[in-house]
């Protein structure tokens, strides 16, 4: 796959992600956008995007599921233009979360469970602007979930 096509796909997904406050686009949305604006065959092109950059999709009859979410990995986001703030926040979050995890003692009977946090706590720790730019924390949580660094279940 040509690097320009790859970059166009990654950038289209990321632009949508930013514009929709940390919500990942579905395949159908990006397919229509690529077809309309770049004349790219999304079915063929997305098949060739490495999984290090884009999470694997579910296929039905050789086509990605139309409602399937296109989720970039941290590496995929890092390849996009104007993603510096998201990557910087992700790295700072990792530092803080690694420390929280080390300091956490799971309650009896829940050995191996993950340390609980809230998005507000994370935003406060990283000094993210909840009022002037509320989507920064939403995008950060979406990236952490995409990397399976946080989840709604306890991991135990």
């Amino acid at each position, binding site marked *: 796959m040509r690097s320009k096509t790859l970059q166009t796909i990654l950038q289209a997904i990321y632009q949508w992600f930013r514009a929709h406050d940390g919500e990942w686009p579905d395949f159908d949305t990006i397919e229509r956008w690529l077809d309309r604006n770049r004349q790219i065959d999304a079915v063929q092109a997305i098949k060739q995007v490495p999984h290090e950059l884009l999470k694997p999709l579910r296929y039905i009859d050789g086509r990605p599921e139309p409602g399937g979410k296109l989720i970039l990995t941290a590496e995929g986001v890092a390849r996009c233009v104007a993603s510096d703030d998201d990557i910087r926040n992700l790295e700072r979050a*990792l*530092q803080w979360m690694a420390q929280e995890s080390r300091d956490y003692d799971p309650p009896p009977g829940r050995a191996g469970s993950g340390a609980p946090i809230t998005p507000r706590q994370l935003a406060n720790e990283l000094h993210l602007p909840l009022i002037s730019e509320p989507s920064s924390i939403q995008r950060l949580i979406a990236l952490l979930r995409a990397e399976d660094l946080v*989840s709604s279940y306890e*991991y135990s």
Partner: protein
Amino acid sequence: MSTREEDLQQILYINPDIKRFSNVNDIADYTKIKSRRRESQASEAGRRHRGNLIKRLRSWSRSDKIALSIAVIGLIALAATIVTLLVVAGLVVI
């Protein structure tokens, strides 16, 4: 759009595997993302530069290319003459 308070208070759990980042100061796995990007941007810029040079060369006329070839051959001949003269001068001095 503002973030809803209930979203901010939602309990999330940190993946215990995050402890693999034992060196908190560099978070090696993730800083690689940045260096990879810098490398890819640098190589992209290099490719663009080379592409522009090739395009410019292709746009040259035949006479331009002949003139450039003569200039290069002339420079090589001049350099060879200077080296020869230096060698001869050296031999004379000895």
